[in-house]
């Protein structure tokens, strides 16, 4: 795959992956979704389930953004400009969920 990667391509939309790469990514998305489904139906619980599902979701998100949405072939400053703001979503999650837990403890 690496030989097709030219992150500083000058022509807009000129640099992209061959169809074989898309099919490989597609296959992996099926595999990762199936693993996530089985993690749930075999009744894994607690931290193991949380960690596994989070890692699987982030892997799928990474594949979709990198290849299907072509971020892999865009300039680095576009990638940073789009991915960096998402840290605020993580901050919101980390900031608000403990609030929910404290409500539960006061019920």
């Amino acid at each position, binding site marked *: 795959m690496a030989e097709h990667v030219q992150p500083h*391509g000058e022509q807009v939309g000129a640099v992209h992956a061959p169809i074989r790469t898309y099919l490989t990514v597609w296959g992996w998305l099926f595999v990762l979704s199936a693993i996530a489904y089985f993690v*749930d*139906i075999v009744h894994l619980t607690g931290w193991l389930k949380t960690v596994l599902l989070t890692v699987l979701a982030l892997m799928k998100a990474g594949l979709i953004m990198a290849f*299907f949405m072509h971020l892999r072939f865009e300039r680095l400053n576009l990638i940073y400009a789009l991915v960096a703001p998402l840290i605020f*979503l993580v901050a919101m999650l980390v900031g608000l969920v403990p609030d929910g837990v404290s409500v539960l403890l006061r019920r």
Partner: protein
Amino acid sequence: MSAEAALQHTEQPSVWAGGVSPFGVSWQKLMMWIFILSDAFIFGSFLVSYATSRASVGAWVDTGKVFALHVGGSEIPLLLIAIMTFILVSSSGTMALAVANAYERRKKQTVYYLFLTMLLGLTFVGCQAYEWTHLIVDYGVRPWWNPFGPPQFGAYFFTLTGFHGLHVLSGVIYLGLIARQVAKGVYDRRGSYANVEIAGLYWHFVDLIWVFIFTMFYLF
């Protein structure tokens, strides 16, 4: 002019100096990315609100049981959602093939894969219509009440899946308009199929959101 200044003059200008395209993409593509980022924050806020509410009530609804399907006398947990995920991931694959064909300016194949993507998108929305009908009519689920557990479940179910389904439906219409342009040869005359790639960004984003709804709402 000193030799040093002349040397500086021939160097590459800064990408932020203006007059160049700092991100190296067309403005249409950049605008779509900015829209996607803002939409990601809308869905992100919904999901964070859901996570907070769920943390505040303790026991939650057993989604595996609620979204199970009966196959040959046995109940397979979450089967309907697994099928919907399969359909949406498939549609992302056909969309990627449409974009790959658009790069090569293969008009017929681009239209073919766009139609296939729309068909899969409509199938997904159809499954969702079945799911909503089943929950509303058979179980009496409302945004403020449901027979399974905490009342918050209904509100978050309708908000998350409803907003996502609306995005899929909008995407089908959007792809339909793009497919029409391709079929009419508009992009051949323009010499650029870039609009297919930009529509692809939107479609893949809708799939990306489903990854998180599937994980956080259905699997957890």
